[in-house]
């Protein structure tokens, strides 16, 4: 038995003892956890104690110091279980790796271990009402004080802000230079009295995100991640991780617009033998499998040291387009049940209504197409996109 096989067996054994097997029959709204926060924290701590949190992170910051192969092995085994680790996904997926790459030694020692042990939850504070795809046009400001900085502004689309302890925030620190050059990334204490979190209700009627308001929120000088006015570089690191995470979906069994779910919906209505529906279900399977395989190719290339570059955007785009396509199929399968409503359909209906939101989150399809066109295919940049005008002379949304 190789060390990988051994690791895998150990993970499997631990999961079988400590996690609930995945239950296909159970409802999965796909919009955050329905598990109490304390239980999530307890589980994350146990995961860490068993040696399965921060698998690829260095030991000195609480990680396990292992390789990508172990991580893949663990994730493959974990796919058969329900892990109540939702609240930690953002912190461990985005701010965590960014601090690991760009943070000071002190930041790493202070923040990474409690993140891994489930003691502190993080959120990411980038998007603003007038700065969506064009994150760099953000208007939240951080002004220097004697001891550090004071932050004012509004963020939006923030997952988990309501229970987060810290956030990684982008703020404008110099409005007189081009927009990418006057931004800084900070660690902000979400418990500061100037921070107000308000749930953001979306089209589905749920509130999976928040608006976050910053009113004279002080942050110390050592809260800068990376360098002052170099926040865009840090953001690029973080957004790269985000797009890979979003696109990697594929045949997740929790996906209400996935093959398994829609096959079931068709069977319930006796439609699985309708030739046209049957072919569309087959095509859905094919497209899902292709997306999974593409994610695996990117993963294997990363493991083999091949740069995947902007191809994470290709995966994100493909995932969003597939969801929109599957939403059309879902509608044709559900037929008038959509108009009538019924409890067993809530998940699918919410997913149909939510599909455009999924396509927009993390950058619209248009933005992803631009990224694929320019950075993967090497096409010329859009004419008229000006990277040199000082921020305070830019035209912004009215």
């Amino acid at each position: 038995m190789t060390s990988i096989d051994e690791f895998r067996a150990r993970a499997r054994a631990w999961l079988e003892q400590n996690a609930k097997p995945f239950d296909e029959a159970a409802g999965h709204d796909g919009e955050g956890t329905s598990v109490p926060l304390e239980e999530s924290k307890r589980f994350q701590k146990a995961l860490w104690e068993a040696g399965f949190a921060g698998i690829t992170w260095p030991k000195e910051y609480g990680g396990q110091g292992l390789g990508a192969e172990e991580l893949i092995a663990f994730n493959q085994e974990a796919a058969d279980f329900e892990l109540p680790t939702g609240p930690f996904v953002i912190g461990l997926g985005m701010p965590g790796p960014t601090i690991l790459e760009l943070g000071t030694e002190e930041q790493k020692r202070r923040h990474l271990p409690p993140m891994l042990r489930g003691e502190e939850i993080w959120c990411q504070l980038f998007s603003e009402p007038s700065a969506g795809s064009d994150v760099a046009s953000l208007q939240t400001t951080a002004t220097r004080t004697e001891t550090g900085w004071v932050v004012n502004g509004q963020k939006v689309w923030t997952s988990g802000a309501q229970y987060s302890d810290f956030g990684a925030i982008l703020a404008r620190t110099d409005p007189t230079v081009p927009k990418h050059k006057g931004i800084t990334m900070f660690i902000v204490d979400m418990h500061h009295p100037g921070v107000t979190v308000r749930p953001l209700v979306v089209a589905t009627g749920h509130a999976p995100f928040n608006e976050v308001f910053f009113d004279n929120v002080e942050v110390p000088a050592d809260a800068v991640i990376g360098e002052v006015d170099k926040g865009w570089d840090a953001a690029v690191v973080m957004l790269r991780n985000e797009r890979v995470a979003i696109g990697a979906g594929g045949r997740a069994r929790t996906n209400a617009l996935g093959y398994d779910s829609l096959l079931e919906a068709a069977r319930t209505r006796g439609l699985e033998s309708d030739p046209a529906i049957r072919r569309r279900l087959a095509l859905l399977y094919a497209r899902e499998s292709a997306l999974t395989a593409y994610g695996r190719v990117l993963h294997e290339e990363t493991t083999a040291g091949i740069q995947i570059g902007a191809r994470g955007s290709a995966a994100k785009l493909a995932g969003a387009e597939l969801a929109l396509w599957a939403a059309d199929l879902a509608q044709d399968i559900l037929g008038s049940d959509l108009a009538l409503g019924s409890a067993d359909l809530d998940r699918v209906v919410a997913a149909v209504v939510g599909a455009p939101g999924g396509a927009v989150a993390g950058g619209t399809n248009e933005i992803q197409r631009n990224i694929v066109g320019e950075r993967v295919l090497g096409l010329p940049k859009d004419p008229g996109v000006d990277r040199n005008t000082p921020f305070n002379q830019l035209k912004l949304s009215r």
Partner: protein
Amino acid sequence: MSLIFTDDQKSLAQTVKRFVADRTPLPKVREVIGGDRSYDPEVWAGLAGTLGLAGLTIPEEYGGAGATHADLSAALRELGAGLVPSPLLACVLAAGTLVALDDEEVNRKLLPRLAEGHVVGTLAVSEPGNRQWIPARPATSAVRSGGGFALSGTKVAVLNGAEAELLLVQAAGPEGTGVYLVERPADGLTVAKDDGVDPTRGTATVTFDGTAARLVAGDAAAALDHVADLANLAIASEQSGAMGACLAMTTEFAKIRYTFGQPIGAYQGVKHKLADMYNLWALSDAALREATRAADEEPAKLGAAAAAARALTSQGYLASAKNTMLLHGGIGFTWEHDAHFFYKNAIAGNVLAGDADYQLDRLADKLGI
């Protein structure tokens, strides 16, 4: 008759548009759909009475205005553009069914009341587990009882089923399939409002359990086939208006929303999608004009033309409403923005009174393929 609007139609459309803007703008619609009733009775009184929409196409001999289908279509476009919850569609279909059946006694009694908007009527045809809008063989049955009939069965997706006082119910009776009239209040009638995806459209499931009913004389199959055309015209009209509203809203947004230093409408990624939305609207609206023209002057072509128009508006609206959400980015996905109401209305409208396959099958039938 021409395919371009007459001055009268323009003036009617303008009047309805103003009424919608003044009395039932979208913030008002939000209040209504959060409430108990599926429409605002005062708004309905205005639409039916002041504007005379309830009786617009009812023949003058029964108290209506005897206007053309193209006239009604012009008004419905504006109501669709404003997502106005109202029982107008239900009433138009109920009155259309009666006119087509032509039971003189019933018509004399009911049509003037429908024309005035004093009573809400609706049509109850669809049944659970049957994907045909109008079942070829309804499971709902009518048996003789006293001097009339007693109905038993369940009808789904009944427009304004919770509020309608007159229900025209398709049922299998002793002499074949017929249309039966139930007047509320009635014993043995239970109504459950649907909790469907579109909150602007108040449909309900209606269950009959020995409910007293009267058989409306006339050729039920022919009348319901004609009413399917009327439903297609009316729904296509609302959808064309709603598509136009989505296009206008998104075009306006594309002019004022900036990203990367340019209004997003300057980028071809947005501009070309809006051009496609324009074409979806312009062509399906042209098909709708051709269908109302056929309804008014060439009835033999109505079936195909109405199904064609409906197939195009339903699909076009769904695509346009989806793009309205997508092109608005995150803002369009918030509850606070109106885009999702259009999207949900398009989703539900696509399967209302027959889904896309139903319309295309109907069109193929009418074309003799």
